[in-house]
């Protein structure tokens, strides 16, 4: 098993006729994902590679039985695409689009409450269950099927961490990039709770960064609920206060969100903290 996506994932790509959508739809297909269709309003009947394009998510879902969708549309239209997917009954929506206004996501999350649709992102790299399915923009290189679950706020740093896990010989069950924005659909705790119940996952790595208090809350959750070994990494120890470090969420403001506080919270919760990516390999070896 794995979390959120597996062999049964049937994927629609919203915004498939755009440059990024077309490229990644075909790349995911090449990685073994069942990409069953794409959606671009007004372009039904076209094909992107071998993938059929539909006018709406309703139409595409009826024709293909899709259960997952991925969004590549520009930020201004991204929440509309999520509403459409959720309304059409898609269970998992992965929003790659970057730069979505925060208030739009706040309203979207309030509306999604009580509905069965899970949103991952926005501004996230997606997720991969190596050997089963990839709904993301990550390269295949750093990943290998295995038993370590990874949840991260970052993109390329996640590749780096997975690369260390893969080179240490373990591989990953599922790697989830939850995104770097202040307001996101799926957070650390949602992923930790899924990893807790996943039999394939024997150890968990949390990759956090400065800003907010999501890592502290994740630490409290781990302490109370998780018996599997958990490892942590926090980026941004050298970041200056009040400067935005790329991700909208990565800002230290008013004394909260500091790397040191997050590391302390991890350690107090029994999470083994790695101070450089290469340490993950040695720490995993001592516990698995």
């Amino acid at each position: 098993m794995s979390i959120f996506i597996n062999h049964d994932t049937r994927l629609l790509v919203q915004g498939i006729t755009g440059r990024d959508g077309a490229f990644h739809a075909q790349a995911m297909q090449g990685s073994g994902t069942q990409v069953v269709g794409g959606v671009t309003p007004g372009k039904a009947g076209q094909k992107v590679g071998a993938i059929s394009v539909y006018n709406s998510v309703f139409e595409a879902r009826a024709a293909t039985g899709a259960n997952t969708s991925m969004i590549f549309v520009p930020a201004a239209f991204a929440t509309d695409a999520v509403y459409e997917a959720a309304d059409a009954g898609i269970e998992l929506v992965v929003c790659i689009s970057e730069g979505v206004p925060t208030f739009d996501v706040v309203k979207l999350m309030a509306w999604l409450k009580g509905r069965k649709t899970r949103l991952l992102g926005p501004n996230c790299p997606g997720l991969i269950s190596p050997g089963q399915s990839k709904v993301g923009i990550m390269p295949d290189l750093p990943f290998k099927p295995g038993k370590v679950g990874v949840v991260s706020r970052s993109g390329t740093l996640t590749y780096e961490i997975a690369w260390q896990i893969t080179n240490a010989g373990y591989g990953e069950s599922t790697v989830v990039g939850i995104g770097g924005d202040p307001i996101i659909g799926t957070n650390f705790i949602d992923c930790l709770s899924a990893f807790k119940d996943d039999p394939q996952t024997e150890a968990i790595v949390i990759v956090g960064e400065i800003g907010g208090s999501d890592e502290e809350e994740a630490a409290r959750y781990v302490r109370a609920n998780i018996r599997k070994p958990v490892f942590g990494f926090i980026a941004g120890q050298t970041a200056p206060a009040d400067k935005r470090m790329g991700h909208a969420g990565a800002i230290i403001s008013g004394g909260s969100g500091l790397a040191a506080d997050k590391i302390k919270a991890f350690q107090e919760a029994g999470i083994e903290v790695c101070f450089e990516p290469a340490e993950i390999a040695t720490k995993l070896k001592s516990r698995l």
Partner: protein
Amino acid sequence: MKIHEYQAKELFAAASLPVLRGIVATTAADALKAAREIGLPVVIKAQVLVGGRGKAGGVKIARSLEEVSDLAGRILGLSIKGLPVRKVLVTQAIDYDAELYLGFIIDRRTRKPVMMASAAGGVEIEEVARQSPEKILKVQIDPLIGLQAYQARDIGLRLLGDAKLAGQFSAIAQKLYSVMLAKDCSLVEINPLVKMKDGKLLALDAKLNLDDNALYRHPELEALRDDAGEDPGEVAAREAGLSYVKLNGSIGCVVNGAGLAMATMDLIKRYGGEPANFLDIGGSSSPEKMALAMKVLLGDRNVRAVLVNIFGGITRCDDVARGLLIASGELNLGTTPGFSSAGRPLGAVPVVARLIGTNQKEARDILKDSKILFADDMSAAVRKVIEVAR
């Protein structure tokens, strides 16, 4: 994006919030003119985009005209947390009975807007939150229906103990929340909101932070941007779509992805070096963008060596390699206006590159005749760049 107090006050006033506006001055003489118009005593407030102005001597009360020109001159000569004070706001000095705090933020945990209010206004709210969190009252707002009047009334009653005042407070809170919504703010704040002798509430200060992601739908707000005091490299980088923050170390770094960029800086520090910057070249980077990134770094005179750490995904290693060639002048694609590498060619500083992922082989081939040093993993790359920076 942050805007100045006087700009925030204009936006608040436009939403018919009761604010003490004042007059903006850029010279002591203008401040004097403003004070004559307003009438003594006046408060002179530095307009800079950082907190803690008061503590830094940027807010003063002047009781005579001599004091006005003296204090305004002094404040205009100040630099607060590295930012030069170019403007002051001159306002009437107000007598009041009580100072409140009122603010709205978006709470990451609940994913909802939250109203915060306190009877302990006039001081930094972060300080209140640390020392006596019970003094801050909070109300969660359902974003689908907005702030309800009863919610604000209830808080007003608890803070002011009087139904009439609570009604006034509630109207102000609702208007402030409507500004937050209309302008897509990540924060709106009045600190202090004072109760005057005549029982009226008045905003003496105004703070408003805009959501950068939503600026595209508020072109009028983009015009309020003030680059004064920002590092010229940071401004140039932002205009080129690069995410760059200058630091004070000697090792420049160019990385794809914000998390990996921060982790790279951390590792430099861990191994005994000092990072000169944060720089994320973003996804789907072109060679030209990479070349610009190198120029921005070389424009920082403190930089003695550069580390390029790329984990290719959407970013292709061959694009990065071509960018390095452009920057080193080995491919001549013309000069880029707006950038100065302070006259230093790329060859002037050693470059260590760690390129892995999409098209890594092609990248090595492109750079095989260059002077660039290679490393296979992140730890080795960081050790090497620290060594060559010495």
